[in-house]
């Protein structure tokens, strides 16, 4: 098998790698690029531990070939914090003790991020259905759902003043 050369962007960094045609993006991330934050819980798209965002779309990296990454923009857990500054979801997961063993945490954080990017005011039911593909065996999801809802609440709070500011501008 000859390897395929792929140029892509991972967490904003231009990245090149070579991989076998049948290698999944998850294998590439973990075994070729050392990005082991994405986890393999099943390898069949049933657990969500390998969740990444590709061109703004939440996917399981175990269900995508590495070769498909050519020219795409990929976001993984390693890129979620900005330097020392945690993403609000990461902070809320800590504040709410929304993790126990932590193996599902990267996938859940990525999934939650992609939800809040689309909907900053989800109902509890919307949160639960959105993350239904992310299995967690430790927490019973209770604290995870609370952490996501609480993050959305803060995001809305922070969003409001900027809207108000914008309105002021228009008046002036």
């Amino acid at each position, binding site marked *: 098998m000859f390897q395929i050369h792929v140029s892509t962007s991972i967490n904003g960094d231009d990245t090149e790698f070579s991989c076998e045609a049948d290698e999944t993006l998850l294998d590439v991330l973990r075994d070729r690029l050392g990005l082991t934050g994405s986890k393999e819980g099943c390898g069949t798209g049933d657990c*969500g531990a390998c969740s990444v965002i590709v061109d703004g779309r939440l996917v399981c990296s175990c*269900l995508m070939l590495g070769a*498909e990454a050519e020219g795409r923009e990929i976001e993984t857990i390693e890129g979620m914090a900005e330097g020392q500054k945690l993403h609000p979801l990461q902070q809320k997961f800590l504040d709410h003790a929304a993790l126990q063993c932590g193996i599902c945490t990267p996938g859940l954080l990525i999934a939650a991020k992609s939800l809040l990017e689309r909907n900053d005011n989800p109902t509890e039911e919307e949160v639960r259905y959105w993350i*239904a*593909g992310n299995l967690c065996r430790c927490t019973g999801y209770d604290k995870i759902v609370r952490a996501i809802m609480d993050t959305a609440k803060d995001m809305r709070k922070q969003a409001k003043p900027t809207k108000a500011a914008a309105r002021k501008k228009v008046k002036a």
Partner: protein
Amino acid sequence: MQYHAPANVKDAVKLMAGSKGATHILAGGTDLLVRMRSGFAEPDNIIDIKRIKEMKTIAKDGKGFKIGAAVSAAEMNEHAGLSKTWPGLVEAAGLIGSTQVQGRATIAGNLCNASPAADSVPAMVAAGAKALIRGPKGIRKVPVEKICTAPGKTVLKKGELMEAILVPAKPARSGDAYLRFIPRTEMDIAVVGVGICLTLDAKGVCTAARVSLGAVAPTVLLVNKAARALIGTTVDDAALHALSSACSAAANPIDDKRGTKEFRTHIAGVLARRAAVIALNRAKGKS
């Protein structure tokens, strides 16, 4: 194994025709990659169709829609026109797997995978959708209910690929719905699936209907008897009862890890009734 990502349909067809050994189309890949991992599929060639613009687009097709074979369920859900016209079909596509799977899975792939339990297929059949198939000899249009011949088997010939799903214009006073039963609330394969599309006249009498059952036979069924139970009625309780019995009678399921024969037979009737009520309300412009 070789990976190809053609930029247009012509090249894709050429690759299909020229390829040696086992050649698989990669659309969403949510079935193919699982089968590859478990060793059930060992492709020599993979042709990724997601780089083909028209196959990644939902286009107006006359008064209907042409849904490219690489369009994901999530993209269908985000298409206002399609969601408004065919809510049942879009909801069915929206039931395939998790949010993550939604971002990749396609209804054409769901159809080509030829599982009797595919969620989007009964909805497509109820909507009267056709598959646009392109091959060396040009294109042909095949009604969705005629695509699968057995579990895992389709009428596609060597060198042929499914380019799009054609969903017809929806007649006035029509409504569609799809319901499936699963043990959990998400993430399961349908134990039974029912797709229904019905049309009413001005007086509210049902003039046309299509009823389709999934996971109760080797292939998805189009149940004309069930449709006839609705046609000519106002879809009242008696009609719903007849529909329910017709669906249970048409069901010819197996016992497996997902459900028993008698359970599936019973559920087919229950879901048909519930789906018909949703379709009826949509036809009446409610919901």
